[in-house]
């Protein structure tokens, strides 16, 4: 998983040529920590079709808020500079993330 920061977010996500998944997490966010291994597992399966990245919002609060992220965890998919899919907090279960990825990949085959 590629680690984002406030300086490279625009380049790596908003201006990226292909689709990008962003795992928005934060220091002290226990649900985020619990979700992380599932995201890494999904990266093995879907990483060839969508780029997996993570952003520690504790070091990039302003950036997170600009992306309308005020609650964690959030798993979002970006394409052509736009957020096209998003699972927030309770909705961001491993199963729901997998479903979102499946649907995203199915739309493209």
């Amino acid at each position, binding site marked *: 998983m590629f680690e984002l920061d406030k300086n490279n977010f625009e380049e790596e996500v908003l201006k990226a040529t292909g689709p990008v998944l962003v795992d928005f997490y934060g220091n002290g*966010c226990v649900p985020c920590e*619990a979700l992380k291994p599932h995201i890494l597992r999904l990266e093995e399966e879907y990483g060839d079709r969508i780029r997996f990245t993570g952003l520690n919002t504790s070091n990039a609060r302003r950036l997170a808020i600009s992306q309308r*992220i*005020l*609650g964690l965890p959030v798993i979002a998919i970006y394409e052509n500079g736009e957020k096209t899919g998003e699972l927030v*907090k309770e909705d961001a279960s491993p199963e729901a993330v997998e479903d979102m990825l499946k649907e995203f990949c199915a739309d493209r085959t």
Partner: protein
Amino acid sequence: MEKIYDLIIIGAGPAGLAAGLYAGRARLDTLLIEKGVDGGQIAITDEIENYPGGLSGPGQKESGAELVARMTAQCTQFGVERLSANVTKVELDGVIKRIHTRDGIHEAKAVIIATGAHPRPIGCLGEEEFTGRGVSYCATCDGSFFEGLEVFVIGGGDTAVEEAIYLTKFARKVTIVHRRDELRAVKSIRERAFANEKIDFMWNSVVTELHGPEGVLSAMTVKDTKTGEERKVEADEDDGMFGVFVFIGFLPNSELFEGLVDMEHHYILTDDAMRTNLPGVYAAGDIRKKPLRQVVTACSDGAVAAMQVEHDLASGRIG
């Protein structure tokens, strides 16, 4: 189907982990299923002050997550199997219980339901829309987004007031919005709140609607419970947003078991050995109808339930 467990525990909060510990030590073949985070509600609690033997006090502060990590380690060292999955359906009436998850069906002679509870929502307009966009039920997860901003805490019990104190680490000002004219929190917590300069109070008030034309919470309608008068509270113009943290109690996670075991107000009824009305089905922790829902009582329930399972299996009552 590969095997039939002696026991499946649904939920790895304090009740489920304590049940796992006792079942593991009793050498019951046990599977512990959790859909999210070990510890459940307690994993996202900033500080646990009232768990006997837990670390608290000056220089000894311990978070819920740290306490739970020790419980998990203690539970798994006795050979309890773990599964990270969401239970989608249960079949509890036969001698062999069938627990459905997305990846398959798991069978056992006994089941302990320890699914706990989730935060009660305000139930006002706009709440769902702004969850994660200003509305939160988890101060340790989302508090830092409100660094230097204003935050409202809804509720007046122990959790609400403790989390309000925690949020003063980030927020410029924390206002406790409570429907009564006094706090229900215990005295030691109340005193800390009253002594905190950053904490303000909005008495006899309930939130009836949340607003945010920009997609981020920036205003709310508050109703006076005495006069019925409504007024709008707006974010400071320079801030453009504020946070609302909700701590007004819990609702049991009992949907899956509705109509299968006896309940009262959606809480599962048990005898004092944690047995439900169905043979081989037990309940422990916040999911039960009981007078005090705390880590210590959840652990107690889990221990009692696991030992009763062992006893009932050994005596041939179940299995």
